């Protein structure tokens, strides 16, 4: 007996095809089939049937109203055959508790999403179906063929404009459709004549496509095998190294000079600026506030590379104070490497069991993913900008820089602008007033005016010290200066010879004979064993429960 696959297809008046959500396996009669033959219903198999979870009963205990999100179908036999409850239940429509679900006088209806419904009337041998729209207008009065062996399969479509029904004969399927916007009540159009099921599947009539049993939905792209076994494998990983220091420096611009003074040189500068050798008359032509020339004075926790000593210029004023000139504003601090290793060599070495964090001077304590760092050689480097005191910490895990943090590692030395600048400004103002318009109109006038405005602003403020990085910088100087890892490792509890009693996790396909000791199988194919099926089950059960090879 051949088996055909029928997706339940309904044809609308405009030729659109509605494909419902389930298929139906129907045993195909042979060409010599006659109506007196009996179809073996055991050959039916519903692939997917709408589940009816909540079926309401009326007061008489009958099911009388159903709401289906998608269409359903049912079967009826009337050629001497008795409707059997099992069949009806198997097909998902009414799970009748009575032998005659279509008893007269009962209001059995199928209600659709659009509130239209089919009213089922008649009796088991002569059922009648009427379709009503949501306003109660009848559009179809449809009865099963009561004179021949007839299998009735209405396929209602919950569509605003259309209700379609299909009627099946043992050898034919009839499809009907009605458009309630164009047709009068009671009128229906037979869209397709019939399909002779005794013919080959390739001789379907127009409008009905033959269905490939292996591809019942040809318009849906076939899925292709995928997943780990079909993947392309892990992509190759590119090494990500710690970058080099920047090649440019603000000192290259000529606007800024960085000095790397010793403590005594700093004192020399202070002495110079505060003693009588400071030629204010010269300086005032350039700046009203000499502190404007000092862009920053920081203490940084790194050895700044320095070159030859040079005289420090404050603005255009060449002082007699010498300091070592810093050759670069960028400094790298190599904190070295730590080989973490794998304490247990098991999943306990990774998250969520093992936890890593790292203390970074001038940055703080940061969480690390154990999956990133377990078993890796960790290399830590800082890049420090001595001018801005910004720092970046790079943590390289194996060959890859997986973490970067930023911080501030400098301490801005408070060069107070209170007494000194106020004094200088007072002198500068007096001096400027004394020379009057001599400099008016020159470039210096703008500078003096700007400097005066700045001084006014400054004097309006309370004395304060500005620190780059604010509290963080000084706190960093007080904190630990060596980075370190904090590792929270679970203390494994492992009984002696655990491997012998329970084995260790495998998930490996292997021949039983290649194993020794304890072995527990997820699945095993007992091929080539000349045993009884009972013995095969016993062996399989033992293998899944654990055996000793």
């Amino acid at each position, binding site marked *: 007996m051949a088996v055909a696959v029928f997706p339940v297809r309904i044809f609308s008046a405009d030729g659109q095809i509605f494909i419902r959500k389930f298929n139906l396996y129907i045993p195909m009669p042979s060409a010599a089939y006659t109506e007196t033959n009996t179809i073996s219903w055991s050959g039916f198999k519903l692939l997917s049937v709408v589940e009816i979870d909540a079926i309401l009963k009326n007061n008489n205990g009958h099911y009388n109203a159903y709401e289906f999100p998608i269409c359903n179908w049912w079967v009826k036999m009337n050629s001497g055959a008795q409707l059997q409850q099992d069949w009806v239940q198997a097909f998902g429509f009414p799970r009748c508790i009575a032998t005659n679900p279509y008893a007269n006088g009962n209001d059995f209806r199928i209600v659709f999403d659009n509130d239209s419904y089919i009213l089922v009337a008649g009796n088991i041998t002569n059922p009648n179906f009427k379709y009503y729209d949501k306003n109660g207008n009848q559009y179809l009065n449809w009865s099963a063929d009561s004179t021949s062996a007839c299998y009735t399969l209405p396929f209602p479509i919950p569509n605003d404009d259309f209700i379609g029904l299909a009627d099946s004969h043992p050898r034919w399927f009839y499809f009907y459709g009605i458009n309630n916007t164009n047709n009068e009540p009671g009128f229906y159009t037979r869209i397709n004549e019939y399909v002779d099921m005794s013919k080959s599947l390739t001789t379907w009539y127009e409008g009905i496509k033959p269905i490939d049993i292996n591809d019942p939905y040809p318009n849906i792209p076939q899925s292709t095998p995928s997943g780990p076994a079909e993947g392309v494998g892990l992509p190759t990983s590119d090494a990500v190294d710690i970058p080099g220091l920047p090649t440019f420096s603000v000192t290259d611009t000529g606007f800024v*000079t960085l*000095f790397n003074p*010793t403590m005594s040189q700093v004192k020399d500068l202070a002495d110079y600026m505060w003693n009588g050798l400071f030629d204010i008359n010269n300086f005032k032509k350039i700046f009203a506030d000499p502190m404007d*020339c000092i862009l*920053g004075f920081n*203490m940084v*926790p*790194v050895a700044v590379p320095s070159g030859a000593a040079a*005289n420090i*210029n*404050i603005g255009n004023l060449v002082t007699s104070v*010498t*300091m070592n000139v*810093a050759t670069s504003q960028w400094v790298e601090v190599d*904190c070295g490497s*730590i080989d973490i290793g794998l304490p247990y*060599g*098991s*999943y306990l070495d990774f998250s969520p*069991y093992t936890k890593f964090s790292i203390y970074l*001077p*001038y940055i703080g304590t940061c969480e690390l993913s154990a999956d990133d760092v377990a078993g890796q050689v960790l290399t830590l480097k800082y890049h420090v900008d001595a*001018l801005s005191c910004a720092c970046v910490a790079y943590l390289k895990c194996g060959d890859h820089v997986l973490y970067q943090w930023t911080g501030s*590692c400098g301490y801005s030395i408070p060069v107070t602008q209170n007494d000194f600048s106020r004094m200088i400004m007072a002198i500068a103002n007096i001096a400027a007033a004394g020379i009057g318009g001599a400099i008016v109109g020159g470039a210096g006038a703008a500078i003096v005016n700007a400097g005066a405005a700045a001084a006014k602003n400054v004097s309006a403020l309370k004395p304060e010290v500005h620190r780059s990085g604010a509290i963080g910088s000084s706190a960093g100087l007080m904190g630990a200066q*060596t980075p370190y*890892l*904090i590792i*929270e490792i679970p*203390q494994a*509890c*492992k009984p002696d010879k655990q*491997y*012998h009693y329970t*084995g*260790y*996790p*495998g998930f490996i*396909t*292997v*021949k*039983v*004979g290649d*194993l*020794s000791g*304890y*072995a*527990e*199988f997820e*699945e*095993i*194919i*007992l091929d*080539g*064993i*000349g*045993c009884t099926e009972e*013995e095969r089950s*016993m062996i399989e059960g*033992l293998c899944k429960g*654990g055996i000793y090879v």
Partner: protein
Amino acid sequence: MNFTIDLYTNTSPENYVTKSITQLGTQLSGDLRQGTSIIRPGIVIEQASVPATANYMYIADFGRYYFIDNIETAEHGLYIIRGRVDPLMSYATALKACKGIVHRAESQYNTYLDDGTFKAYANPAIITKKFPNGFTQTDFILAVAGSASAI
């Protein structure tokens, strides 16, 4: 039909493929006069005695090893040996040629598979590891507008 039974003492658990067995006495030989199950045989033998330590047997005609579940005495010097098949030992050779997906094993495993095999105490160990180098020097940086003059 010449029917032979070898009695053994088995000291291995049921889930051992290869049992550690010691033969007891000589092979019992006779005729099979009544039907019995090949999976759970009940063999009636006429014997002066059956070793009380016999807990395992091999029936050559069935080609199977059996656990002896019980030995019952009957009238007229008869003993009933009730057994059940040991499929692991009986088909050990063929079984060892079969392939399967190991869930856990003693000899081949991957301990990175997290199936709860390893357990840990509630109190973890807290370990700190210092990097070899840190910040050890402090320098002053003075940034000044303009350039330096050579001495």
